[in-house]
């Protein structure tokens, strides 16, 4: 018994407390954003917030289950878990239920389950498992391709189910790969391509090509070994122009109209005022409402349940993807910066713990957890404030919904378990 108690105290309580703070604060904001009519009780299961309270209850049960498994279990069964998750995603094509045009739900009675929320931790486990294999070397092309395949499979399946937002999350694994030895050049190429894509859309191909040519020439001039480099530089330039052209082409023909408009709004590409006005009513409507709600909160907010825009349900999807705007309106700058700081602390804490792991599996997995949380945090809050284009993904531990909450809880608490076990590994 004594041994058992000691074991409990080995969990990283800082992580657990940060998790609980986010969960609790999230619940109150969901209550504000989702209540219909008077609030008679905090446990009114006819209301969405009452349902969420049940999800939270089940979350604690889930945590107990996760922690009761031996840490070794997750490493041993990583591949099986991954396989099950992928089968669940594939099964959607046959048994899935259409919700808002995305075929990403299973219906079980009145409940719905979104397997993509569970695919994240499964993929993180699989990536950790593969990279921690002694024979894996992340600097080789072969292993790079294999590990890329592990994340490519769920990403593709989810994309095919029309859930582009969740697909983007898989880019998070880049941080993991980089940490585990992926060459610097990938980072440079990735950053260059992002900048190039933005430039091409914002300023057109010609200006982008000229800018690229100037930069490439300067790089060439400062190069020490110039022999044979001319051709190399010309190839890079040609690729740059081709890529810009490709981005433009993809933007104009490859994207769906609403995706195109979201990017157009973000980069302020639309010049036609009539069309812009129309876009403001459709694609930018959520964003405008959410920005107004946040900014109307001021320094200290209007108070719990006092947000006029929240009460009036001005921000669509406010209890799910736009929950941060409720924080903004009712809790003001004090509340929003509190949430941002909680997230930063949680991610940094997980990173710190990951680095302290003795086993590579635990470290890679921890890194995966931090990266996935980071991408969700950045995209969700960035979107709600209009810093990045609209991408519909939830805010971890905060947004309404059972699948999301459970997916993130499993993701985090497997790591809490792994971390608690680090001493035993000796």
């Amino acid at each position, binding site marked *: 018994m004594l041994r058992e108690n000691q074991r409990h105290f080995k969990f990283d309580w800082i992580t657990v407390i940060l998790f609980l703070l986010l969960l609790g604060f999230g619940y109150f904001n969901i209550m504000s954003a989702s209540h219909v009519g008077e609030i008679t009780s905090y446990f009114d299961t006819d209301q969405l917030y009452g349902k969420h309270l049940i999800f939270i209850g089940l979350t604690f049960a889930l945590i107990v289950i996760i922690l009761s498994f031996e840490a070794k279990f997750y490493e041993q069964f990583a591949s099986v878990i991954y396989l099950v998750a992928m089968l669940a995603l594939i099964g959607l094509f046959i048994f899935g239920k259409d919700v808002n045009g995305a075929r990403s739900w299973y219906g079980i009675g009145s409940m719905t389950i979104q397997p993509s929320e569970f695919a994240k931790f499964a993929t993180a486990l699989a990536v950790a498992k593969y990279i921690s294999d002694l024979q894996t070397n992340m600097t080789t092309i072969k292993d790079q391709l294999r590990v890329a395949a592990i994340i490519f499979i769920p990403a593709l399946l989810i994309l095919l189910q029309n859930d582009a937002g969740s697909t983007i999350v898989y880019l998070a694994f880049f941080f993991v790969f980089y940490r585990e030895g992926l060459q610097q050049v990938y980072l440079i190429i990735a950053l260059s391509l992002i900048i190039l894509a933005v430039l091409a859309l914002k300023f057109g191909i010609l200006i982008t090509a000229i800018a690229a040519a100037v930069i490439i020439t300067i790089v060439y001039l400062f190069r020490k070994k110039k022999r044979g480099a001319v051709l190399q530089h010309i190839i890079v330039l040609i690729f740059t122009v081709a890529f810009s052209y490709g981005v433009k082409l993809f933007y104009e023909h490859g994207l769906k109209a609403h995706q195109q408009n979201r990017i157009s709004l973000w980069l302020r590409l639309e010049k036609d005022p009539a069309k812009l006005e129309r876009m403001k009513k459709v694609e930018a409507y959520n964003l405008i409402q959410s920005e107004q709600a*946040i900014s109307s909160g001021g320094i200290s907010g209007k108070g719990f349940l006092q947000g*006029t825009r929240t009460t*009036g349900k001005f921000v669509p999807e406010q209890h799910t993807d736009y929950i941060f705007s409720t924080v903004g309106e009712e809790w*003001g700058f004090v509340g929003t*910066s509190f949430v941002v700081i909680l997230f930063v602390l949680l991610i940094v804490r997980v990173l710190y713990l990951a680095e302290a792991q003795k086993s590579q599996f635990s470290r890679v997995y921890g890194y995966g957890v931090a990266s996935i949380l980071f991408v969700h945090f950045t995209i969700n809050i960035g979107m709600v*404030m209009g810093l990045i284009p609209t991408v519909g993904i939830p805010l971890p531990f905060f947004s309404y919904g059972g699948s999301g909450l459970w997916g993130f809880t499993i993701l985090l608490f497997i790591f809490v378990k792994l971390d608690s076990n680090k001493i035993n590994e000796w």
Partner: protein
Amino acid sequence: MRKLLLLTTVILVGLVFIARLFYLQVYDNTAYNIFEDNAIRKVYNYPKRGYVYDRNGKLLVANQPSYDVMVIPREVAPLDSLQIEEFCNLLKITREDYDNKLEKATHYSPRLPSPFVPQLSKKDYAVLQEKIRKFEGFYILKRSLRSYQTNIGANVLGDLGEVNRKTIENDAYYTLGDLIGKQGIEKTYEETLRGVKGIKFIQKDRFNKNIGPFKEGTLDTLPQPGKDVTITIDSDLQAYGELLMKHKRGGIVAIDPSSGEILAMVTGPSYNPNLLVGRERNKNFSSLFLDKVNKPTFDRGLQAQYPPGSPFKVINALIGLQENVVTVDEKFTCRMGYYYGSRRLTGCHHHRSPIAMNGGIAQSCNAYFVNVYRRIVDKYDDAGEGMNVWANHAKSFGLGNFLNNDLSVGQPGRIPDGDYYDRQYGDNRWGSTYIVSNAIGQGEVEATPIQLANMVAAIGNRGYYYTPHIIKNIEGETIDSKYTTPKYTTIDKKHFEPVVQGMFDVYNEGTAKHIRIPGIDICGKTGTAENFIKIDSVKTQLTDHSIFVAFAPKDNPKIAIAVFVENGYWGGRFAGKMASLMIEKHIKGHITRTDLEKWILTHSLEDEYKKPYSGEPFKINGESRLQVIENYATEENYPLKNQNQIDVKL
């Protein structure tokens, strides 16, 4: 290094987010204002606007319900052209109007209500009420409009109009579409009459539907009704003055000297106040305002500044006595004018000579007053100082500055002082002989009829006046003490008696003896003012203005009056008769000098006013013939009884 990439990115993103939040919520955020929160619908509850009564308790202005069609552009459902046509027919507007109005409303705000078609008639409302539901985004707002119980006194009562953008920006009380007093008593007593509108805050959802009261209605307020006011105008006297002013241009202002209360305030031509109520208000107002020939919206009793002419001579007599430069009995010679050396500075008419002050006033001798005036100015070391002393005395009669009262318009007039002529001629490069016109109320002196009426009130009171005002009583309030505190002139009381006697003699034996009223001791003074107009940039003289000031009775006067008739020729011809009739009407309540009344009612100056615009050469003053009208208005058919009769036809 590889360990740091994610760590630094996380911290960087956190900082960027907090910076962005700081910008949105702290830096770019003004204090929360519920009126700017478009999640909260503000529903106004307009109180009853206060009624206006005349001094005898006669109701002049009441209220009537009105129905405005409002629009919230964002909520307008797309209509096909047939539906739009039906809607336009119901509203009696054209398709073009429809598009313009909708565009204007959208431009103001797509989500706030704008008036679409204001002030429907009761009949239109009844028809539309049934069908408005079919047209999403439009609704009918019930409001209260003015209902005039009279068709006189448009300039006194004023009117209500929609509040303009600038006022809304400066005064948070008003919202678009609110009515506000634009002229007259409606403007000066706006806050008293309007009351305070009540407000309900209602939580909306994003589909603009009401969810329920905001904060359980704890912020809501009830409307406070506007207060009724009683004005000093005697509507019978006002109506009579307007009758007399028919077919003439000019102003009449009658004041009760014992209180400063304005009894009548007539301007001609005037218009029916009912023209400025309802849907036609804006159209009618522009026609009235743009009539630059008749200028019906220009209140000639308050705004017209003219050289006052001879009535101003009595002020010079009083200043002369006060400055001790002349005695009552000292006589001056008049040789058909005043001569400086061999140069005649001003002419005069034929009368006995030499004359003392009493004769000077009664005969209105120009030479007498030039003598007195020059002595005043030359009493001091330099003419500038003399003029300043003179101007201070004159200004103590309420001349040369705004009266600072409760009328919505006014003009300062002009009393020139030493600085004025220093600017005109150069410092000290002028003397009393340059400016003798001031002695006889010509030259640089200018005054409005209300200033002249107040001036004679001060003379009738022997040295003080109450600021002329129009408010008599406000329900449950005391009126401003500045209207109940006498203002003293700089002239000692003892100097007034001889001057008053002179004005009395004007009626007894002077220029006004033929317009005497039996049984009433009137003191008065006639005046004429030359005037000019530019026709094709040639300065052309028109027939003189006819001016008359009077007070009566001689002791403890009940009425002080100034009458001004444009191009009426000499003072006794139009203005004097009208002043006598007004005095008789006020004191006796009926007219015995029906001969004078008939003469005024049957004689028109309209032909005279057409002359400068005829493009043909014309004659003036004595060579001009008076126009006589056969079918004239009388007190029986004008203006209280016949609702359709107005001076300005639109």
